[in-house]
């Protein structure tokens, strides 16, 4: 048995820190470029969570500066509640230390690995300790820490700690230096933009070397911080039950009612009967076998779904729309928040939005924004259940072209999954696992939105058709008239009768001819039309007949305004010398009753 003894000498426990040193990819530090994004993501997640808990509107400042050839200094600063000095070393210098791991509510960070992993990564690549400044209120002074992690023991190593003069009343600032590159700059900005879309109450300021960007907030309302709830009997595993049982000195029936959400006297009794264990026994005295029976009974007994309204914090349809509208110029946006639902005892809620047209790229695959608990998912799109749902829908039904499953054209799709326990495919939290209940909700939300988009597009096509007709009648037919009249050698035939018959509208036509600009207003409606004519062009129109009622100039563009009254079936003309071009607008008459035609286009 010499070999076994030799082996035994090599066998020892591994610290978490050591483990992650060797498995950086598990936490999203697999490459230096990705490291920057992961670090900022973790810090920003923490800041947003903290602000939410403290009920303040987040103001987050992010700076990335190149310090030397390969080393970058990353600073993330927030106006959150700050961290009490005694806790700072643990939050940043110990892996798996956190306040939210044991709570059942929607949070961004969960396991408490994120930011300390960044500290570890910095220490491994640049060797520089992480600097943390935090202040918890006006009465307290800020403190500055320099922190490293003791890799063998996973304990913080405080290099220095001293008071600090800080102009912020409360908040936290973390400064991390590590080896990296800025090749992922685009992705980073994308990440921050998407974060800002689903956190419309937050403001982000970014300094990237010499450039600066701001993602402004569109909502002044602090979002409600989700409240932790007790575990649901369907969403618990053996280990957790055993731990809870060991810490309790209640009888089983009381334990079930007190420690779980939605379990009443009746349900507790049913669970006990099912398990064949007396409800009057003390729970901490149960054997493992008895606990297993109890767990099975808990999961087999019908218990109402967990209370989602308190523990989940959906963004809301209105804020999703506003968030998207501020970052993307689109012709159409619709959002859906689905009712909450449950998988394996965990509450979840799906929100989705579809945007169309505007500045979205007209070709190629639709833009897909994936979010889990208000955090953008930036990697592994192909492995994500959201992507699966999007490609599984038959978009052609909604008149949207589809290629290789993906909808194409100027389409943006946003999906947000909020849950007390988002089922990620791995610890780097890049993709949501395929859970049937979640997929069903995503699909329903998207189908609903697809129908709405279809309506919008067909409405738009109908109005395009009307425009097309107007163009034909008001612009092309007069040209046909001119040509035909000259062929048959008769006087120019007047086509205004055709216009009037077809349009029953106020038709404003503008044309530039031989150095003159003519605006013609034909009232084909049955009522008097009192309208205001706005024209913006480089022409001054100083010699206009009739004279403009008002003129102003900005950047070489002149705005001319005429007030005109046109009785039914009459014509008014405005003319002046100029080159034409610009914009013509008629106000004071409803859209359906007017038509503006630019004959020079």
């Amino acid at each position, binding site marked *: 048995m010499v070999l076994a003894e030799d082996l035994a000498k090599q066998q020892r426990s591994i610290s978490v820190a050591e483990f992650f040193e060797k498995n950086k990819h598990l936490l999203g530090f697999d490459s230096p470029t990705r490291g920057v994004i992961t670090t900022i993501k973790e810090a920003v997640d923490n800041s947003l969570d903290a602000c939410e808990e403290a009920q303040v509107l987040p103001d987050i400042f992010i700076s990335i500066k190149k310090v030397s050839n390969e080393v970058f200094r990353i600073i993330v600063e927030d106006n959150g509640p700050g961290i009490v000095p005694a806790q700072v070393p643990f939050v940043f210098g110990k892996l798996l230390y956190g306040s939210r791991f044991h709570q059942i509510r929607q949070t961004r960070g969960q396991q408490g690995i994120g930011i300390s992993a960044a500290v570890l990564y910095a220490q491994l690549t640049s060797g520089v300790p992480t600097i943390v400044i935090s202040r918890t209120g006006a009465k307290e002074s800020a403190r500055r820490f320099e922190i490293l992690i003791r890799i063998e023991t996973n304990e913080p190593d405080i290099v220095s700690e001293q008071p600090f003069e800080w102009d912020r009343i409360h908040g936290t600032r973390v400064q991390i230096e590590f080896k990296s590159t800025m090749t992922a700059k685009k992705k980073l900005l994308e990440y921050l933009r998407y974060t800002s879309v689903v956190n419309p109450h937050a403001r982000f300021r970014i300094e990237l070397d010499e450039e600066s960007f701001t993602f402004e907030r569109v909502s002044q309302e602090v979002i409600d911080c989700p409240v932790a709830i007790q575990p649901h009997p369907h969403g618990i595993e053996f280990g957790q039950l055993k731990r809870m049982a060991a810490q309790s000195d209640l009888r089983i029936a009381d334990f079930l009612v007190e420690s779980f959400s939605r379990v009443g006297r009746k349900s507790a009794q049913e669970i006990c009967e099912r398990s064949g264990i007396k409800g009057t026994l003390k729970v901490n005295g149960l054997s493992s076998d008895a606990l297993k029976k109890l767990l099975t009974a808990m999961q087999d007994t019908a218990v109402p779904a967990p209370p989602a309204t308190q523990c989940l914090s959906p963004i809301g349809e209105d804020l999703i729309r506003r968030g998207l509208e501020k970052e993307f110029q689109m012709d159409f946006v619709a959002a859906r928040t689905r009712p909450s639902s449950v998988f394996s005892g965990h509450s979840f809620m799906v929100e989705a939005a579809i945007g169309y047209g505007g500045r979205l790229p007209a070709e190629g695959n639709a833009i897909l924004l994936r979010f889990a608990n208000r955090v953008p998912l930036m990697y592994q799109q192909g492995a994500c259940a959201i992507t699966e749902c999007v490609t599984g829908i038959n978009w052609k039904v909604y008149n949207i072209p589809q290629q290789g499953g993906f909808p194409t054209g100027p389409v943006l799709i946003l999906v947000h999954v909020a849950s007390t326990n988002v089922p990620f495919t791995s610890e780097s939290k890049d993709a949501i696992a395929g859970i049937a209940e979640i997929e069903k909700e995503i699909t329903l939300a998207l189908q609903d939105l697809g129908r709405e988009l279809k309506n919008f597009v067909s409405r738009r096509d109908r109005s395009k*058709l009307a425009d*097309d*007709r107007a*163009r*034909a*009648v008001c612009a*092309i*037919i007069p*040209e*046909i*008239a001119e*040509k*035909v*009249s*000259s*062929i*048959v050698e*008769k006087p120019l*035939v007047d*086509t205004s*009768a*055709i216009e*009037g*018959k*077809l349009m029953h509208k106020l038709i404003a036509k503008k044309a530039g001819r031989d150095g003159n600009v003519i605006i013609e207003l034909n009232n084909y409606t049955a009522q008097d039309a009192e309208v205001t004519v706005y024209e913006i062009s480089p022409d001054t129109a100083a010699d206009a007949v009739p004279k403009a009622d008002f003129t102003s100039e900005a950047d070489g563009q002149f705005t001319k305004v005429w007030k005109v009254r046109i009785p039914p079936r009459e014509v008014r003309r405005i003319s002046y010398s100029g080159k034409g071009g610009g914009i013509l607008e008629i106000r004071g008459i409803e859209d359906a009753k007017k038509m503006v035609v630019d004959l020079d286009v």
Partner: protein
Amino acid sequence: MSKEELEKKSMEALLRIAGVWYEQMKAGEIPSISLPTRTKYNIEFDDASEVWKYGDKESMRTAASAKSATHLLKMAYVIGFIKQQLIENRSSTLREMYYISEGWKRAKFGAQDESNFLIEDLEILSDVPREGFHLHPEENGASIYGPMRIREETRRGMKTLHCQDDVGQAGYTIPNNVENIELVDHDAKFVIAIETGGMYDRLIENGFDEDHHAILVHLKGQPARSTRRMLNKISMAWDLPVMVFTDGDPWSYRIYASVAYGAIKSAHMSEILATPRSQFLGLQPSDIRDYNLPSDKLTEKDTEALKSELTDPRFATDYWKKQISLQLEMNLKSEQQAFAARGLDFVTKKYLPARLSEMGII
């Protein structure tokens, strides 16, 4: 019809079209035109002239959408252009008109196809062939070789030519305006219209025209309007049967159909372009079987084309139904030059004499 009569008819017809639009607009109506639908579902056999013409189905084009209005505007510009051309006694090719349209702003043509279609529309509306508009096609007609004499009014004066004695070994080239040709005399019993140049040359080299008193016409694939007009003219003037000799595939049957009945695109001109007396000589699907000719498998497109021909009114005869069904069954096609597998003389010494006597021609 003389040149002057044609020009007068054409001018009147064009002014009539413009006149209708003028009156429509004057009455406060949107200008419109109505044209026969130009698909195979709207061609009918005309018993009197024995050719296929457009039926009653019409489609109305009203200037109520930007697209249709632009179409009418273009037509108006073309009418104006032709009017000017007739007044100044000038002519141009379709391609030249396409380039001239560059200056027509909104009415300019997007592609040559568009101007071709528009001219066809005008031919239908006015019942005047494009020659009457002083527009002529780009391509030359194909060639003729055989015992016949013609007189042609060329730009360099009147010329009389015998199509064996006065021409090179490629034959006489049919000009693009056949109206300027006068058929003088002949010593022929029939006409063979041949799809490929290779077979045309083979027949000349083997002296088939002399041995059998045959006029040989090279179709050059799908025949140009002038070639079809020439065949129509010869057949009418001299009362000669026209035998069409093509490859044995669905595309070649369409060549025969356009010679015999007219093309769908020009059904409005069928009376002067089609030769109802022409007959299909070969290569028949049954020849592939009977002569065991070298052959290829039908492609998916061939099969599709054959099936579509089964529903084409021009192929709605027992003969064609039988041949096309046989071909679909064999799943084979052959080129006319496949006869070379049996020796270079086989086609002129065996196949054609046998087939022509079977058809009662010799």
